[in-house]
């Protein structure tokens, strides 16, 4: 009896030790991400309810000020401008990225000579550091010597060279164009993965039945790809709404506030106006929008499938 019970405790001990093993393995990553990512995000929610300016940054004693940061931000005309630009920037970018990405995914869904090499080159925009992309386009959009103006004037699309980065509406168009260039790889990769996963025999049957390419696209490819398309659009929304680098590098949100979007507005409040509290309030608003989109994405694109 006694020996049996001691056996079972040692078994228990080794079982509970086994149960703990996965937690040892994920502990470093969890601790790190909680400290450097989770905690700061929670901290910024606290900051959004505090008076937190340069004074408090030095004294390290911020004061609770209720909803004053949010009131100040929402009454700031710059906020509405940034919100409007963010929406235009995001939806126009996604619309074109997605259409071009879908077209390319369909084009590359059947292999042809050099198709892998071409696809590789088409994805290059994704890996290049954003500061490099921004700088290249600053040069290409240069009003006097830029390539873009040359191509447009020599093709007679415009008569006079355009001051792309120096005039209001054109500046917003420029950063959207750059962002489309940046987003094409992402859309192409995910949509290609979706298309190559589709059952081929259904398409062959449709061909035998006399369906043309357009019919196959609208009645078969797109409906069958529904969940991939949803995932691509939601991720596209999340990744585009947060774009900061290329805009800051190309225009710093200017000229005036022509290219100010929510992320550049939040950054400006912190690192140029040193109003960290209001900046945190804008961050929380961005975070809120992103988390709603993320929840939809996770629920319908990731969890539903399992």
């Amino acid at each position, binding site marked *: 009896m006694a020996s049996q019970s001691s056996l079972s405790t040692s078994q228990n001990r080794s079982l509970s030790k086994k149960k703990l093993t996965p937690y040892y393995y994920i502990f470093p990553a969890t601790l790190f991400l909680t400290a450097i990512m989770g905690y700061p995000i929670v901290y*910024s929610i606290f900051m959004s309810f505090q008076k937190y300016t340069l004074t408090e940054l030095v004294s390290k004693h911020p004061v609770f000020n209720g909803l004053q940061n949010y009131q100040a931000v929402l009454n700031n005309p710059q906020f509405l401008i940034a919100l409007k630009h963010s929406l235009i920037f995001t939806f126009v970018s996604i619309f074109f990225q997605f259409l071009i990405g879908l077209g390319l995914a369909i084009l590359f869904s059947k292999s042809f000579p050099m198709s892998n090499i071409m696809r590789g080159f088409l994805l*290059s925009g994704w890996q290049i550091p954003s500061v490099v992309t921004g700088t290249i386009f600053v040069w290409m959009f240069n009003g006097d010597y*830029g390539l873009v103006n*040359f191509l447009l004037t020599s093709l007679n699309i415009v008569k006079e060279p355009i001051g792309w980065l120096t005039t209001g509406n054109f500046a917003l168009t420029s950063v959207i164009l750059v962002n489309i260039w940046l987003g094409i790889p992402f859309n192409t990769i995910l949509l290609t993965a979706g298309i190559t996963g589709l059952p081929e025999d259904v398409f062959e049957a449709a061909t035998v039945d006399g369906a043309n390419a357009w019919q196959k696209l609208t009645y078969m490819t797109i409906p069958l790809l529904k969940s991939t398309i949803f995932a691509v659009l939601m991720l596209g929304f999340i990744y585009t709404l*947060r774009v900061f680098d290329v805009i800051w590098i190309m225009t710093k949100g200017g000229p005036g506030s022509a290219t100010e979007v929510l*992320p550049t507005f939040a950054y400006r409040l912190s690192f140029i106006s040193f109003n960290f509290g209001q900046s945190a309030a804008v961050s929380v608003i961005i975070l809120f929008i992103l988390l709603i989109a993320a929840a939809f994405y996770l629920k319908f694109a990731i969890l539903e499938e399992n």
Partner: protein
Amino acid sequence: MNRNKRETLFRFTLGLIITLIYLIPLYWMVTTSVKPVSEIFHKPPVLFPSSFQIDSYKQIFGLPSSRAEIYINALSYLKNSLIIASITMLLTMIMAVPAAYALSRFRFSGRTPFVLFLLVAQMLPSVLMVIPLFVLFRQWGIINLGFTSVILADTALALPFAIIVLRTSFLQIPVEIEEAAWIDGGSRLQVLTSIILPLVRSGIVAVGVFSFLIAWGEFVFALSFLQNVAMQPVSIGVFQFVGMYKSNFDSMMAFSTIVAIPAVVAFLFLQRQFISGMTAGSVKQ
């Protein structure tokens, strides 16, 4: 058969045209960096340089050339980026390997919340992290402590994605291989390091390079945390260059080319791994 050939030709031609158009910015970057100055400020622009110069490269590295000396030396920025990116890569891998292994081999409670946490973490924009991190790093006294602030923040950016992608690499290794090794008397950790890691090395290389590139090109954290010029990485170097030498286009593009090279080279070699990695965290498997 004939119809198929026509279709292939059509796809090839269209693919070629689109690829060439897409590559115009990169072509323009490289050719601008080696064009004679007279052709840079030429109207209309010179699409194919008539001759080559490398004074632009000499200028950004502070080597004797026909150009005026400038206040920016690419070498210092490159060295800083190399240090930041290498340490970020090491730190990321040290934490990502065990976490990804646990996700691929154990069923434990808290597993799904952990994966969801990673997926959300991967979506968090650095511009939202930089504001509280700046305040917190100041409080913790590490804002001016060498590269610490930037390395920690960069690692947080790379880690979630690294774990998600590495997990799929581990999943491809049959559990039976491990079980055989345990029976032969190896501990779990020994088996992981001596048998499993060599088997997933292509995944490890790809994720390592990916983490390196994240830190190599990272902009917001470096812009906000590193005020000392001697500590700044290449992303800030290029940014400063654009601000200080607005019309020095050939050297600007030479600097950009140098910064882009590691990314382009890595991508050419690891294209397949990058693509499957990108798909891994985004759509259902």
